[in-house]
């Protein structure tokens, strides 16, 4: 095992230990609640990144999978009386089924047309669900009284680990290499025997499954909302923005993006009530304008620059020594 891998492994274990211990260290529900939102968005942005970042297919209908997972889970868990985990799996299954159904026609579209097509899918489901389920879904009083944030928190920890882990395994596999080949140059990939359609469909299915699972966890977490809310485009665009802020096509990018997006936005909202969106919007524009590859690319640039500077200094020192 190389030194870099050991450091990565240690870091992962440290982060997991920190996440596991957080509720014991922090007693304030507001912090745990913010952590839940960060983990939710880590899962959602990472699931979007599998198709959008690694396969290069800009999916603007991600909310459809999130929403379908959430709607199915909530109906089965709250209305039909199923236990949680079968409901979650059914929700993820429903999202996956939708992905399989729309995959074939959707991937006949390319580039911006695929983006518009998926956006339309999300909007169609948004309106349809609004018409079909106009009533608010709220947790019954008995459940509210016994509502515990901790199980929800750990569910989201597990979900974030599962999503990031899946993305990691996938992109380090032969399938992942195929997905990235499709992203870089579809025709070239096809000419080398990589089936673009198969890889895109697989990415869509995995992405939808994880988004559906995230939607299901959200349905378990949230106390009351209109079912249509789950299909709001905000779930797509927030996930997309986080992936872009952090860095698309990387494992760490959506994690950093979600952390920045949720924490910065929340802190600004708490401190600059009247102008928080203006300030956050400005920050976002600055990031997109000046760091087009997101924070991950910026960090890589800094590291390269530091290495270059240190290298140059070393060379100067060495030549001085030689001269003296």
């Amino acid at each position: 095992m190389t030194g870099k891998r050991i450091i990565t492994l240690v870091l992962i274990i440290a982060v997991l230990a920190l996440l596991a211990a957080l509720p014991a260290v922090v007693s304030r529900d507001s912090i745990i609640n913010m952590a839940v939102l960060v983990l939710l968005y880590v899962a959602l942005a990472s699931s979007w990144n599998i198709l959008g970042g690694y396969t290069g297919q800009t999916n603007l209908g991600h909310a459809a999978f999130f929403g379908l997972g959430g709607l199915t889970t909530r109906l089965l868990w709250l209305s039909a009386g199923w236990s949680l985990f079968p409901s979650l799996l059914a929700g993820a299954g429903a999202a996956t089924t939708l992905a399989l159904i729309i995959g074939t026609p959707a991937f006949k579209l390319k580039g911006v047309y695929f983006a518009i097509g998926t956006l339309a899918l999300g909007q169609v489901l948004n309106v349809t669900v609004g018409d079909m389920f106009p009533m608010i879904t709220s947790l019954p009083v008995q459940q509210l009284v016994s509502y515990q944030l901790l199980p929800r928190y750990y569910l989201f920890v597990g979900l974030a680990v599962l999503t990031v882990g899946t993305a990691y395994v996938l992109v380090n596999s032969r399938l992942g290499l195929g997905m990235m080949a499709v992203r870089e140059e579809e025709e070239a990939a096809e000419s080398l025997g990589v089936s673009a359609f198969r890889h895109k469909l697989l990415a869509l299915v995995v992405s939808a499954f994880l988004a559906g699972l995230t939607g299901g966890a959200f349905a378990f977490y949230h106390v009351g909302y209109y079912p249509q809310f789950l299909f709001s485009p905000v779930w797509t665009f927030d996930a997309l923005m986080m992936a872009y802020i952090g860095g698309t096509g990387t494992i760490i990018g959506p994690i950093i993006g979600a952390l920045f997006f949720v924490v910065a936005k929340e802190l600004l909202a708490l401190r600059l009530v009247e102008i928080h969106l203006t300030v956050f919007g400005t920050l976002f524009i600055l990031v997109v304008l000046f760091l087009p590859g997101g924070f991950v690319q910026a960090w890589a640039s800094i590291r390269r620059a530091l290495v270059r500077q240190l290298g140059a200094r070393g060379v100067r020192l060495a030549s001085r020594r030689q001269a003296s």
Partner: protein
Amino acid sequence: MRSRISVLFVLVFVMSGLLTACGSPTAAPATQVPATQAPEPTDVPKPPTPAAIEIGASMPLTGKYGALGAMVKPGYEYAVADINAAGGIYVKEYDAKIPLRLTIYDDESDPTKAVSKLETLYSDQKVVAYLGGAGSDMHAATSAIAEKNGVPYCGVAFALWQIHQQGYRYLFSPFPKSPDQARDVYEILNGLPEGERPTKVAIFQEKTDWGIELGGLWKDNAATYGYEVVAYEEYAPRSEDFSGMILKAQAAGAQTLLAMPSPPDGLAMVKQMAELGWAPEFSLIIRAPENVTWGETLGTTGDYITIFPGWHNGEKFPGVAELNAAYQAQFGRPADLLTGPAYACVQIFADAIARAGTLDRAALRDAVAATDMMTVVGPVTFNADGTGNVLNPLIQWQSGKLELVWPPEQATADLLFPAPAFDKR
């Protein structure tokens, strides 16, 4: 490359500066008034007097309900300022008058963010009471959190009755609900001479929970009051074409229109009614015409439309004139429709805290439930489900102005009836 790196450092610097140096985490602290000792001494050892009574609100200051939140927020702020100007609230437990401190957060009209903000108010600010925002879905999320945390919650700007039927104990709303609106419209129409009553009713029901609830109640109540529903049409929110519904109502000879559209739908609906030449003698269109842009956009076409807004600045209850004067000084117009009910919420909490004599949330909840007081929205008591027994005024657009037309003892103008054809307005 260097410029990118410097921009990154600037970003980090700006962020850290913003997050650390923006002052206290309380977003909108009310005027601080030092706690003043009440004159009567006591022998019982008192707990240390808190510097302020913390109350908090998460409300939509931006997003789709931003316009509603903008009307609610000043109501809370004026009420807190007025109470603090009088020295605060006397709390027996501390034998002292304590000022209120109001923290307001923007939830961006997003129920998830609203939940997060209420959790922050609960665990960080330790609020003893929540003030609600606006919009049924926002109240559905936030009132559930209030129930979970056991914090008394006062919400206005929603007429959905169903929220109150879930067994919540901490939810209170001094605001008219669907059953009031479904009853009062027929009561008002029955105040007209018998031969002139527009008894044939068309109901345009929006396919939302409130639409289903209110439309159903209007339909159910019609026969009881001697009215006949000749057209009951449903439509999805954000519809653009209402002509089919309008023509059906016109063909059925409907004289009264009852509807609850959102602003864009309501504008389109009335424009198409004018184009198709269907002018009901009486139109009650709740919600869309509440927006000040109604008169500006529709001109005389928008006249004669009536609304149940929950409150009007022409009401003659104590404190309304002062509220209007303060609002006029700050915004150049009398108080907005939701400002009065918001003000009343703070009055109710202040009264309940004084009666409870403690800042214990459960005791405060019981005191709110037992409310029987005069506010800027008139006398308020609460039913067991948290709905308020409050006045449900009817207002009407008259020559581009909103006039209070019912009840008669509060009216600023007479109800204009019947409405003439659109081209004769």
